[in-house]
């Protein structure tokens, strides 16, 4: 192996005495894609945040080209040639795409002071084209872009070349979690181009297939310690999972437990909102109905329509044969519909609240005394029960959720949805950022719920999840429903074709 371009030795970091990272050691060779794997909360993001200068390590050392460096501020990290795509989407919605690309960098200027907007937009346009995402207009406000497009802009920002500060290592923390498969493909193409030019990639993902496909080597973190670094060619998925978790887990979907019952739990007839039009389907009790489509096709919008987050502009919604009029999320939850929103940080979590506060939020009245006085004891007990059911990793239900790792935050949102024994469960990307083992746990849980007669709507950009978990799949295109197909016998290719508009 060549001398490492970037190396970390025994990095450690504790929060209030609880270690997040104990022995983070990595050696990145030039031109390689180095995967960093580990369970939720293993310390991957912590290690990355230290490299980025966003967090100070308690101990340990960082070497670039064999020389020890100290990274106090993100701008220092950039000068060392490190580029980051962080786990949580961090964009400035009020600024244009071009400005987001150039955030923290010198803009092209006129007279040495004033921003040269034309040049800025030109350079931005070039950067976007290079990533094959020229459909994004540089002068648009970031807020107007879909989540996937925003992620692509952040990725483009990391790839932006600058004079004098050549990038050497790109560090990506779950970049594909918010991307569709076509968007991911674009990213992989770019990664291939970069490594061909001798750049290195540190790549974090919970998607095994991806890692097996694009990585050269893999380092595994467990409980904050690097347990091994191996060439990808010398390791199997099963081995990797065992290194991460210390146990053997099938990377598969739990089997269907019982046939879907025939009663209708939820039915939509021509229901419309401002962004989803004329949606009609019947969700049977015990059925899992998937929703797919290209980015921005309106998958989320169906769920938002059902939960009452978006105003219904036409059509009807029935729950157990009862017509639901008007409606807000409050009345929908009371009707027995539970919801896991798409963006956990923006739409799901009270970041400063505890795990308990977050899980009982939708159930405060049922857990209260006389519907008025809060019953703290019941809140703690029920949230502890549900937390263990979703296998949440935390120091307890009183820990604030902002301290949890990304995957564990996702589990908190899920825990809230299933705490009240719902009649219908709406899941929008429920396993985004969740590790393999936990994903299996969640899938098992969803299956159990279905078997107990809950009707489930599952929107996911992970095609294998859709095929592995659902009974039927509803295909969306440009805000309209184009088909509902049985899952049995579907392939990912066929599903993608349907999304592109091929007739069923």
């Amino acid at each position, binding site marked *: 192996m060549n001398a490492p371009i970037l190396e970390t030795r025994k990095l450690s970091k504790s929060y*209030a005495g609880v270690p997040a990272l104990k022995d983070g050691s990595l050696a990145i060779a030039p031109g390689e894609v180095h995967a960093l794997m580990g369970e939720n909360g293993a310390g991957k993001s912590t290690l990355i945040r230290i490299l980025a200068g966003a*967090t*100070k390590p308690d101990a340990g050392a960082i070497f670039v080209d064999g020389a020890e460096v100290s990274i106090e501020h993100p701008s220092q990290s950039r000068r060392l040639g490190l580029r980051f795509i962080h786990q949580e989407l961090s964009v400035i919605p009020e600024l244009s795409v071009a400005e987001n690309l150039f955030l923290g960098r010198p803009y092209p200027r006129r007279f040495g002071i004033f921003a040269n907007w034309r040049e800025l937009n030109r350079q931005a346009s070039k950067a976007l084209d290079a990533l094959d995402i020229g459909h994004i207009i540089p002068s648009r406000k970031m807020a107007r872009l879909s989540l996937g497009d925003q992620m692509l802009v952040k990725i483009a920002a990391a790839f932006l070349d600058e004079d004098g500060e050549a990038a050497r290592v790109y560090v990506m923390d779950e970049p594909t979690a918010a991307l569709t498969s076509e968007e991911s493909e674009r990213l992989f193409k770019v990664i291939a181009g970069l490594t061909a030019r001798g750049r290195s990639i540190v790549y974090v993902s919970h998607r095994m297939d991806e890692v097996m496909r694009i990585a050269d080597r893999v380092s595994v973190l467990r409980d904050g310690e690097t347990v091994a670094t191996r060439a990808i060619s010398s390791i199997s998925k099963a081995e990797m999972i065992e290194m991460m978790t210390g146990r053997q887990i099938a990377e598969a979907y739990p089997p269907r437990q019982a046939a879907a019952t025939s009663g209708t739990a939820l039915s939509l007839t021509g229901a419309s909102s401002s962004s989803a039009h004329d949606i009609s389907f019947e969700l049977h009790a015990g059925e899992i109905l998937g929703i797919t489509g290209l980015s921005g096709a309106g998958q989320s919008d169906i769920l938002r329509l059902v*939960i009452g*987050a978006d105003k219904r502009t036409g059509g009807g919604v029935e729950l157990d044969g009862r017509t639901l009029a008007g409606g*807000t*999320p*409050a009345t*929908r*939850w*009371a009707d027995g519909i539970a*919801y896991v*929103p798409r963006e956990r940080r*923006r*739409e*799901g*979590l*009270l*970041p*400063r*609240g505890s795990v308990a*506060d977050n899980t009982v*939020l*939708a159930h*405060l*009245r049922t857990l*209260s005394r006389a*519907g*008025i*006085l*809060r019953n703290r004891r019941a809140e703690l007990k029920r949230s502890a029960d549900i937390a263990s059911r979703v296998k949440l990793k935390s120091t307890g239900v009183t820990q*604030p959720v902002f301290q949890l790792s990304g995957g564990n935050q996702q589990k908190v949102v899920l825990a*809230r949805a299933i705490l009240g024994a719902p009649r219908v469960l709406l899941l929008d990307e429920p396993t985004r950022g969740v590790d393999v083992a936990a994903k299996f746990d969640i899938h098992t849980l969803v299956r159990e719920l279905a078997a107990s007669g809950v009707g489930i709507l599952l929107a996911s950009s992970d095609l294998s999840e859709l095929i592995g978990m659902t009974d039927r799949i509803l295909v969306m295109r440009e805000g309209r429903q184009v088909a509902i197909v049985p899952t049995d016998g579907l392939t990912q290719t066929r599903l993608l074709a349907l999304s592109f508009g091929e007739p069923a």
Partner: protein
Amino acid sequence: MIRTIRRYGTLIGIIAVILFFWINIPDTFMTARNWLNISQQVSMLAVTAFTMTIVMAMGDFDLSVGSMASLSGIVAALAFKAGVPVPAAIILALGVGVLGGLINGALVSYVGILPFVATLGTLTIFSGFAFLISGGKTIFGTDIPASFSGFARSGVPLFPAGEQWVFLPYLTLLALIVLLVVWLLLEHTVYGRRLYAIGGNTEAARLAGVRVRFLRFSAFGLTGLGAAAAGLMYASRVASANPTQGSGLMLSAIAAVFLGMTMSEEGEPRVLATFFGVLILGVLDNGLTQMSVDSYVREILVGTIIVLAVASSSLSKLEQR
């Protein structure tokens, strides 16, 4: 250690201030009499700040409380002047407070105006009404019934001290009752927990079934009620009503809540912490006056101590990164 300072920085500050006065004014500061005085002096601010904590739990503000306090005092005084019996006049004034608060709430939650702008607008409107209906005049003298102004001068007898009895002033008692009620509401009811959820992340709370609009609407009503009550307490204490008399309350109430926020771990507004915020403001004013500190120097000291108290807890929070 750092954690302790972070959490208790403000509290340690309060204790240090109290000790300082105790040592420097040995005879009169640490007496029941003086503490009862302080409690009475801050009671109006306390009621405003306690009820302000309700909207601040949702991450909102109410800048109109001062104007509302003035308006409610004027409304009661005009009602007295028109011969309305005292209890009815009080209910009328409190009703105006609730109504004004609900207007704020409706603007914020149903119309969707930022609380800062909405209550800045109603601050002007309420104040305009206070001036308009009073004709800009101070209402005083025989227009104010003795039973009303007597309230602020009496209390519950506690124990004899020499020839005189020491009283727990009614104003103090009222402030304590409001504290208890707001504490129960915020910490021990579903309603209160939902307000904090809105403060934590409004969109998440809405999607999790919290009726955000109605809660914001009603919470502003409660703050308006508190402001009106404070206005009545003020009017009773000064035995008069004047269209500007509440104007000092708003910034002080917000300051008290913020001072309190430095004491809670998550930096959330908590009403018991607000209590300490009010206390520090009251103790500083009382102690520095007794030490004959020039009133302008007193002002500078109060500002500095606020900044220092908050700084001690903020600095140690920065360390946490």
